[in-house]
């Protein structure tokens, strides 16, 4: 007796789901139109521009010094790095040298800013994983200490407006050094506490190990930079490859990942915090006395020309391209937005994973919408 069998397959249809601009997990106003097949993500289409404020056009109407508060608001989580990149671009254009003490102060503040940024990045990553705010709040507690130091120095906690063309705006107050010393003594053990809580957590490993793998070749082709690139195994750090300021005097390691998955990015950021502490220790040890600001007129008129300077900001390579025509305002200012260029790899990383992984991979790239949209 012949028995007829038929293939029974379930017919499914992909549908479109909108992760709207208002969502608890997209770090800012960012919209993704995802095509899902059940739980599996087939394709995403990003829609951004909800935070566009026209900063590059505004630069043409502000003076060179008056533009510094606006650069604060680009990547509002790490303002010191933005200030530093912009001031370095103008100094390169106008040929101004920065005094030694100012360079040391800039390095100390930039590395403190890197620690603060990585604390938020990892805290939000774990929040997206579902750990109910616990690591997030622990990391914010340490970020409070850094923000206290920044408030002592510049007067504000988020948009510092501290670097000036030719140096920094003021010197450290006298209570800064003791407080920094206490912070440097305490912080390594807090990072150890985070590792004890999270490094071998099986659920975190199961969620993020092997998820969202970005190959080295794809990362280099998409011009990804920052911890995302280093997690793929490619050892590229602008502080080593193209040293700016006085970074060639300090010794530090560059943490590198193995596979390029979410867990590697998380670990790379943790280790970078330790290396930043090392750099701050060395910078504090040989801090010279002297002026903190070069003699630069308030309305700077750089000679006609163009300059591009880039730094290793906590999220990647942040660059400013300035064109001057001899007047008090830039003729054109363009920002190389780290987060936007890192975001272009999202589509490749996400296809084939599930909705829960989409949120996780997106969080591990660590973007800030202020930079994406400018």
């Amino acid at each position, binding site marked *: 007796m012949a028995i007829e069998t038929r293939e029974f397959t379930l017919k499914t249809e992909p549908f479109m789901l909108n992760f709207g601009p208002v969502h608890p997990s997209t770090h800012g106003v960012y919209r993704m139109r995802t095509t899902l097949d059940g739980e599996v993500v087939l394709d995403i289409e990003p829609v951004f521009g909800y935070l566009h404020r026209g900063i590059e056009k505004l630069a043409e109407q*502000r*003076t060179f*010094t*008056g*533009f*510094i*508060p*606006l650069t604060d608001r680009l990547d509002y989580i790490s303002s010191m790095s933005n200030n530093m990149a912009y001031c370095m671009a103008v100094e390169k254009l106008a040929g101004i040298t920065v005094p030694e003490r100012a360079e040391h102060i800039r390095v100390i503040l930039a590395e403190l800013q890197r620690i603060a940024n990585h604390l938020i990045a990892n805290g939000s990553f774990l929040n997206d994983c579902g750990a109910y705010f*616990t690591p997030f709040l*622990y990391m914010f*507690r340490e970020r*409070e*200490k850094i923000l*206290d130091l920044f*408030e*002592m*120095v*510049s*007067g*504000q906690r988020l*948009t510092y*407006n501290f670097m000036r063309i030719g140096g920094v*705006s*003021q010197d450290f*107050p006298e*209570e800064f050094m003791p*407080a920094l010393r*206490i*912070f440097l003594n*305490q912080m390594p*053990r*807090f990072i*150890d*506490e985070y590792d*004890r*809580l*999270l*490094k*071998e*957590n*099986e*659920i975190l*490993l*199961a969620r993020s*190990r*092997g998820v969202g793998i970005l190959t080295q070749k794809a990362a280099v082709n998409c011009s990804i930079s920052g911890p995302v690139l280093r997690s793929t195994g490619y050892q590229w750090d602008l502080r080593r490859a193209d040293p700016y300021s006085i970074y060639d005097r300090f010794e530090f390691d560059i943490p590198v990942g193995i596979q390029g998955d979410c867990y590697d990015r998380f670990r790379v950021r943790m280790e970078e915090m330790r290396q930043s502490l090392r750099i701050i220790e060395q910078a504090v040890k040989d801090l010279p006395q002297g002026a903190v600001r070069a003699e630069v007129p*308030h309305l700077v008129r750089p000679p006609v020309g163009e300059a591009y300077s880039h730094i290793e900001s906590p999220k990647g390579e942040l660059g400013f391209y300035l064109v001057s025509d001899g007047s008090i305002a830039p003729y054109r200012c363009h920002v190389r937005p780290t987060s936007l260029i890192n975001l272009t790899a999202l589509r490749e990383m996400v296809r084939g994973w599930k909705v829960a992984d989409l949120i996780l991979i997106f969080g591990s790239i660590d973007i800030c919408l202020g930079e994406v949209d400018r």
Partner: protein
Amino acid sequence: MKFERFGLGIIKGLTVTIKNNLRHPTVAQYPEQRLNTSRRIRGNELIWSRERCTGCGTCAKTCPQGAIEIVTSTNLAENKYVVEMYRVDTGYCIQCGLCVEACPYDALFMGYSYERAKYRREELVQADDMLLESKERPASGYFHPEIAQKLPRQTLLVERINEER
């Protein structure tokens, strides 16, 4: 993705949380306990000194937002400007402090207090006598070290909570 290490990582994490349970929480109960802000805080308002201001207008030229408006007239007898109106729209102000830094006569100060919200948008535009320093509007030490010395010390989290880890 194998299930690595059979649960030891979870147990380590549980010990960390339970230890934090027994520690003092890092909170300050606002508004009963207020922490001291930095001496250089760029607070919510601008303070102007009528005696020192000469009406040169450097602050208005420096402000990135264009929030300062000055109207002067000449006093030829004493060869000076007389400031008739000095108006700041604190709604436009982004508290960057560039005006305080730029003033050549040290006539501008940032405010020290940060709880200065108003109910109406018109009240944000402050002019002349509203901008003078008074007891409700103390001045902060941003770019004014002589005032910074007299202000109370900032409360620092590193000094308040210092448990061993």
